[in-house]
């Protein structure tokens, strides 16, 4: 079997003893695991024992690409970062677009495994066959923008691509992120703190090779077709024009824009923080990722005596706008963008930062924490001044920031039992900015996601609702490609029926596949309808030369979900961890969905049915037969004592 798409090489770097090794993987390995989360999980399950603390020497951090990364397929720019998470203590994973993943492939590697710990700060320099561990003592403590510039100057190659942590990662803030090229983030599950614990500030990569594909002409033709036709898509056009904040005002009108720590779903200031408003005010330009013509990234700039926002840090995504805006009661787009810029400078996940601050705001307003504890800050919802100050206190672990840097779940434990109900977390990770009470499939995804609360487990419920002419319902399902899974009837967003669970697992397989192939969901089905599922089968075949199918690809997605579940089982997670914050079981107080809540019994029933459909036992542990069916029967020997 010949190998196309992948390089066949995995780079292993040990920071304790400085060893560097290149390990070869055979074509069959790629045929089974394909890339991204599956490659990362293969190594983590085999090599990181269940007893390891995320900050231990024995934790490993893995940067993985897929067989399609670095080809001309639009959206193939992404890479996966994975380790045991310091936020959840389970499987930690985050993806980012940008330029670093393709560059790693050009340098000749599919993945980098970093193990051990350095005594002194270091960064890793990968230039084709040359791999060095270099001194980073002079970079330690500096903001990401300074480090980006300094490493490029030191290496003398402007085309070098850099992933790095910021000062927050160095200080082990449990939701520290990893950035590449300053504006693309592997944000979630606190993986920046794992790099910080290893005294690893950055990985700089430069590659001059190319990704060898089986049928270059077919891939080129598809890329040309995509570039030419993208604006005909009703989903891509607003994405290019407004970025991912295209929905802010719509969400508020629907009553599902998380506002004031998820208390309510409508926000009076929604228009003022919307993608439209941003485009008309402080937007300087748009940015994009490798091989993608969509350019959904925003770049903002403000240069006022009282407020400066540097454009090198880009601009906010939807998640950041809602977490640092409506969810904290902030309706000033410049303040939201400044908060986003501070998170980029210091290296913190904007979702967890905003939702941890909204938690602290609610605790303050409810009298659970005092002004004295907050070093005199009046941390009310909407107080911009206190809001920007607390971000810096968290990043620097100053005052109460030292407690909030542990994330809202752990902070609530310190503030006392009355605070716990205001911590909007699942598996200790803060909720993303999607109101589960209006999208029950998303809420189910929050509960069962292996990485803690996550909004990218499945396409969101509204796509599958009956909204149009009821005589055209079949057409409606067709456009989401779900008919290919035998799902031919619309399902209400506020339903946890068995049919919804069935829809959810098929969507979850498909979404997981995107983290296996490291393909951006924003250009793919059903989020944008540009890369259709049949197209994807052809594209993967044209890159790899494999005879593949929808079934085969979707099974790779399922493999990833089940491997992640196995890792969590080994880390001590049980079905008791598949729960939602109490607030989602309370009625929404306003908007068109006023009074709607998620019934606990309905959720528990849906989760039990989900386990059954996934081939997991009543405790949520993957069954022996399911693992064999997925081609990962080797995990059975590890799981047997937990069953």
């Amino acid at each position, binding site marked *: 079997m010949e190998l196309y798409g992948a390089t066949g090489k995995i780079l292993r770097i040990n920071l304790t003893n400085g060893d560097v090794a290149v390990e070869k993987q055979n074509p069959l390995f790629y045929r089974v695991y394909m890339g991204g989360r599956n490659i990362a999980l293969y190594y983590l399950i085999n090599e990181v024992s269940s007893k390891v603390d995320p900050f231990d020497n024995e934790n490993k951090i893995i940067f993985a690409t897929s067989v399609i990364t670095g080809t001309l397929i639009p959206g193939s720019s992404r890479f996966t970062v994975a380790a045991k998470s310091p936020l959840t203590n389970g499987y930690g994973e985050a993806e980012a677009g940008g330029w670093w993943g393709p560059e790693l492939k050009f340098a000749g590697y599919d993945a980098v495994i970093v193990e051990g710990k350095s005594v002194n700060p270091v960064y890793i320099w990968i230039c084709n066959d040359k791999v060095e561990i270099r001194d980073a003592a002079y970079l330690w403590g500096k903001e990401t923008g300074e480090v980006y510039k300094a490493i490029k100057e030191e290496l003398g190659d402007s085309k070098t691509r850099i992933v790095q942590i910021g000062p927050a990662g160095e200080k082990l803030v449990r939701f520290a992120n990893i950035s590449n090229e300053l504006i693309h983030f592997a944000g979630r599950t606190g993986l920046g703190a794992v790099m910080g614990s290893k005294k690893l500030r950055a990985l700089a990569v430069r590659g001059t090779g190319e990704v060898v594909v089986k049928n270059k002409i077919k891939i080129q033709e598809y890329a040309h077709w995509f570039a030419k036709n993208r604006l005909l898509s009703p989903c891509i056009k607003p994405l290019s024009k407004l970025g991912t904040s295209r929905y802010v005002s719509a969400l508020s009108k629907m009553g599902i824009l998380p506002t004031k720590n998820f208390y309510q779903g409508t926000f009076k200031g929604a228009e003022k923080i919307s993608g439209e408003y941003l485009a008309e005010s402080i937007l300087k330009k748009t940015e994009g990722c490798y091989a993608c013509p969509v350019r959904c990234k925003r770049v903002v700039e403000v240069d006022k005596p009282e407020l400066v926002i540097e454009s090198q840090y880009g601009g906010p995504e939807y998640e950041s706008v809602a977490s640092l805006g409506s969810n904290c009661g902030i309706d000033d787009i410049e303040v939201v963008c400044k908060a986003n810029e501070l998170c980029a400078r210091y290296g913190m996940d904007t979702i967890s930062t905003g939702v941890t601050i909204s938690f602290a705001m609610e605790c303050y307003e409810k009298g659970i924490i005092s002004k004295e504890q907050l070093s005199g800050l009046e941390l009310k919802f909407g107080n911009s001044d206190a809001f920007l100050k607390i971000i810096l206190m968290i990043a620097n672990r100053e005052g109460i920031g030292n407690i909030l840097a542990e994330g809202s779940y752990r902070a609530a434990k310190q503030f006392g039992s009355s605070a716990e109900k205001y911590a909007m977390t699942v598996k200790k990770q803060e909720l993303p900015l999607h109101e589960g009470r209006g999208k029950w499939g998303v809420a189910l995804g929050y509960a069962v996601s292996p990485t803690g609360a996550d909004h990218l487990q499945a396409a969101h419920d509204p796509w599958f609702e009956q909204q149009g002419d009821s005589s055209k319902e079949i057409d409606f399902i067709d456009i989401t490609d779900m008919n290919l899974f035998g799902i031919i009837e619309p399902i209400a967003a506020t339903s946890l029926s068995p049919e919804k669970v069935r829809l959810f697992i098929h969507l979850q397989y498909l979404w997981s596949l995107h983290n296996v192939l490291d393909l951006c969901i924003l250009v793919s089905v059903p*989020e944008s309808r540009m890369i259709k599922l049949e197209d994807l089968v052809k594209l993967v075949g044209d890159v790899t030369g494999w005879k593949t199918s929808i079934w085969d690809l979707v099974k790779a997605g399922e493999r990833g979900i089940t491997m992640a579940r196995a890792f969590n089982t080994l880390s001590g997670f049980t079905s008791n961890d598949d729960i939602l914050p109490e607030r989602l079981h309370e009625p929404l107080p306003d908007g068109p969905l006023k009074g709607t809540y998620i019934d606990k019994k309905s959720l528990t029933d849906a989760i039990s049915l989900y386990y059954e459909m996934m081939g997991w036992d009543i405790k949520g542990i993957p069954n022996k037969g399911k693992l064999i069916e997925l081609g990962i029967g080797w995990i059975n020997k590890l799981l047997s004592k937990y069953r």
Partner: protein
Amino acid sequence: MKIRIKTIGYLKDYFTNNIREGEIEIKPGTTVNDILKKLGVEEHLSSFIVLINNKIANLDTPIEKEAEIVLVPKVGGG
């Protein structure tokens, strides 16, 4: 009778006459779909959600009395 119609966010781009907010005269029993056809919006029928008087409705819901119709883009994730 008169009804108010309003579009949210980027949906205005899909209205041929670029209407974002206004009033139109209709007969009782007219559906939202009929109104949209009149406004030249036949494409992308699945791309938005219809609210009639702040309640979620369908395109084929008949309108019997004065109402506010709001068209909201369908909200995905990410």
